[in-house]
């Protein structure tokens, strides 16, 4: 009798388990949804977005994972969105399950919030990443951020417009190699074009970070931007003089904005910015004119060391009590790290893959890329990777988040003020002394704003 009862209980238990068993892994019958916020382009046709669709239709469908994008803002905007969401501010939405960000976000969200990728991505896949990209990704032996693609900064030129200008003013590409000569070209173009800007920096933080390091100084000291050093003075004054004179655009937003209309013909910013640079300009009458794009290595000061900045956000995953979510995020990022995706998605967007093999192939074959725009980006970039040294990063210190956001704003507003003063005060003759005075004043103002001079 006892045996019979035990048998019945076993049958019922097995049947119940088979019908209503708990779910500890993903299943195609009951998919898990992962909310993703990333920086890989807010254009619908972004290769990354197409990649997500492919994942959802293939690997995701097979394993029951749906990646749902909830935003693709610029990294600076994402910083703010996530920081406010983490603080649960009204109207800020929720922190996404998975997002890409710079390490400065760790100043807003504690590292313990994040998943340890070591437990969700096979070691084999992690080891396929170039170790240089994995530096400082670990906090307390936990791999809390993982890179899938990286970028750098260089000079991107509207070669069609530049050629005409260069021809008439005997300017060459060599003049764009150093910061000093580049700014001279900016001023020359301003005069030649009758008041148009030549160049726009997408952000000033990296300009100072790289050039100060290039001159042997240190930009970030004791967790703050050091505006008092002689190197800072030199880097600032050189920029300020060109900006005040008008060669450099001080417009808000990215260089790609004024690029569309031909208001500027070059920009210094992330290589990933190339996906937003159109190969045509449109004038006010809606006429469309095709242009060629040319990229050149990042200009540094004449006597400075050749340094380049390593950019690109990493993936952070918020630990979930639903283990299926954690597994699903691991599956998706693992999929992105696979050679096929590394080769097909990221080089289309101005990023370099982190997979060692794919990166090596790209370095070897950059000159044979069929897309002209991408070829013009990767050829000089790969040269830079060989001839430039990596600039020490400065994006994970105590006040990194605030410093990064405030510094860009303060420099721009300060230069705008100086430019406004210049336009009001300039005469018809030599205005060199006026520019020098205004530049010096603006430096002192910046030093005061940042609290380093009283």
């Amino acid at each position, binding site marked *: 009798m006892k045996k*019979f009862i035990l048998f019945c209980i076993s049958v019922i238990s097995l049947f119940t388990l088979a019908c209503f068993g708990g779910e500890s892994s993903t299943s195609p019958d009951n998919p898990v949804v992962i909310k993703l916020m990333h920086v890989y382009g807010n254009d619908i046709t972004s290769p990354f977005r197409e990649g997500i669709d492919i994942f959802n239709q293939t690997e995701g469908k097979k394993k029951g994972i749906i990646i749902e994008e909830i935003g693709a803002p610029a990294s600076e905007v994402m910083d703010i969105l996530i920081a406010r969401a983490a603080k649960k501010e009204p109207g800020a939405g929720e922190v996404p399950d998975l997002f890409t960000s710079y390490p400065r976000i760790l100043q807003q969200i504690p590292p313990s919030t994040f998943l340890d990728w070591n437990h969700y991505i096979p070691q084999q896949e992690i080891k396929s990443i170039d170790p240089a990209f994995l530096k400082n990704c670990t906090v307390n032996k936990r791999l809390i951020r993982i890179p899938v693609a990286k970028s750098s900064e260089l000079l991107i030129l509207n070669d069609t417009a530049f050629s005409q200008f260069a021809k008439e003013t005997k300017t060459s590409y060599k003049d764009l190699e150093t910061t000093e000569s580049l700014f001279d070209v900016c001023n020359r173009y301003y005069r030649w074009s009758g008041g148009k800007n030549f160049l726009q920096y997408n952000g000033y933080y990296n300009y100072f970070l790289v050039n100060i390091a290039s001159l042997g100084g240190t930009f970030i000291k004791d967790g703050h931007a050091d505006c008092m050093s002689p190197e800072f003075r030199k880097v600032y004054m050189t920029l300020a003089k060109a900006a005040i004179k008008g060669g450099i655009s001080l417009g808000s937003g990215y260089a790609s904005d004024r690029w569309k209309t031909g208001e500027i013909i070059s920009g210094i910013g992330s290589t990933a910015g190339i996906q937003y640079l159109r190969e045509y300009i449109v004038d006010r009458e809606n006429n469309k004119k095709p242009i060629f794009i040319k990229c050149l290595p990042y200009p540094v000061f004449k006597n400075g060391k050749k340094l380049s900045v390593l950019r690109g956000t990493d993936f952070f995953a918020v630990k979930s009590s639903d283990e299926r979510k954690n597994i699903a995020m691991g599956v998706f990022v693992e999929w992105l790290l696979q050679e096929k995706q590394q080769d097909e998605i990221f080089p289309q967007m101005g990023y370099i893959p982190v997979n060692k093999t794919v990166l090596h192939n790209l370095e070897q074959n950059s000159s044979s890329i069929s897309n002209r725009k991408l070829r013009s980006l990767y050829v000089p970039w790969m040269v830079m990777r060989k001839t430039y040294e990596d600039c020490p990063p400065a994006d994970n210190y105590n006040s990194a988040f605030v410093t990064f956001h405030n510094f860009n704003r303060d420099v721009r507003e300060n230069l705008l003020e100086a430019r406004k003063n210049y336009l009001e005060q300039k005469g018809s003759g030599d205005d060199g002394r006026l520019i020098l005075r205004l530049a010096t004043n603006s430096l002192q103002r910046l030093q005061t704003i940042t609290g380093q001079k009283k």
Partner: protein
Amino acid sequence: MKNTFKYYKLLLNNLKTQSRSVQGRFVVFLLSWFLVFISALLLLTFLAGFIRPASKNINEALDNDLKFLSLSLNNGVDRLAAQSVLFSKRLSLETDAFLQKERIKFSDLKNNPELICKLENQLFPVVFNNLQQVPCSGAFFFLNTTTDDKREERYFSGLQLKLVNVFSNVTLYNKLSLFRGDMLVARNHSISLHLNWHAETDSNLYPLIFKTMLQKKQIDNPQFLLGNDRQYPDNGESARLLFYPVINKNKEIIGVCGFEVTNLYAKIMLKIPPHNKYTQNAIYALLDKTDTGYSGQLSSGGSGLKTNLQLEPYNDFMRLTHKSQKYIGLSKILTTGASKHTLFIGIPEARYKSLVKADWQKMLLYLTVLLILALLACRHLSKRYITPVLTNLKEITRIAMDKEEKIAQLKKDSDELKKKLVDEKEETIKKLTLEKEKTIHQLTLEKNETEKEHQKAAEQIDSLMTSIAEAETRFAETRELVQKLQKQKSEADNKYALSCQKLEELDKEKRRVEENYKLMQTDLTRITEQKIEEVDAENYQWFKESLDTLTEREKEIYDMHLAGKTTKEILTEAGITENTLKFHNRNIYGKLGVKSKKELLRYASLMNRIS
């Protein structure tokens, strides 16, 4: 007595044959009642709505969601439509004001970029404010004018503002960009140009809008329209525009205005209510009828325009097919303003099938559990009420059998067993006696033989001892004689001085005595040699040399033999069995090169004598 026994036997047989059928019938009876009860219970729960097929639950859940969604959509569209009416009026007023201020007619705007730019700058706040009023991804107005009417393609001036981040529903931190309009408007109002910015709008982009705009007739009762899902040519983004004509004071259409809702924005804003089990991972689609089926937007997958969608009946549901993806759900015609659309809500076909399957499994589980419980109950009841009756009857029968037949049978069996046991006992005793006698006889023979051997050996020893004793006696006599002679010699020596004469005689006597002594010595040697000759010299030599090769145990036994102990004494003293002693003896004999105990004793005795 015999009759009574027969009666009980018959009764037992009857019970034996009937017991199974009684028990079985009882179980079947109970089970039938249980099944009737379960069926009634199931029927009642089904009628009460506690148990329902999964498809019905899915249908109900989807129907609720569809109602909710259609209500949300209608509310959203109504809100946009209402705002678009205000938007249109405001634009109309602002445009009239601008024309009056500039002292121009509307037609004077054509081919005048500066004036158009000026008007756009003036109307920017109107667009901006309206965009902030309603949930949408963008707001626009297009005017029936252009900066250059000599171009091959037809363009229209106007402003279209869009949220920068097309994905975000967090408009609090979302900036605006200029999608269409003069770039100076963007510069003047510090907003960026959209990635796909153009100064004017191509008439092919929104055919329905421009068809509306180009109507020449006067409009008395304008209606809003929710356009079909359209895909922008530059970035693949899809959107629906809700628009309303902008009418001047002469009731002429001078343009259109409205709001843009991108598919992505709609996906974010329009959510299916919190999922229950049956609508988990449900999707919705807002579709427009086309020649080849349907096109429109899906809330899952990419946000681009989906074309070649098929919608067909499937049991009590509708099935939406998009490429390889199939969804089972419900659809509804949605009338918004002057346009009609189809709203569909459904779950993936695989999920639907899985839910139906799970429902069947659940039902099967319930039934299995109930059946097992019924079986257990029947078994328990039959065991409780039928088994004791049968057991008691069996007991009565067994007692009856004990009284009569079983006792007789047992007695008979007992006698037979007794006889058998006695026979077996006698036979065993006989057998044992024979074996005993045989053993005694054998032991006696062995004993006699051993005693004989012992006696023989003793005799031999005695003889040897006698010979030795005789030789010893003779030797002692000879020695005494020698001593005597020596005494005599000393006396003679003493007397030498006294009697030199007698020296010769004494010398002679001495030689004679010496000769006698020699003879006796020779005699003694001869006796010894005679003994030695009795044994083999080589064997004796081997015996002597091999004594050291004996083990301690063997040496012990050897010593016991020499001590003249009998086999029994040796066995007792050494605490060994006879076989072990035989084994040791065999080893001792082998090592010393003797064939028997007698020979061993002879050699040993001789060796002692010689030493």
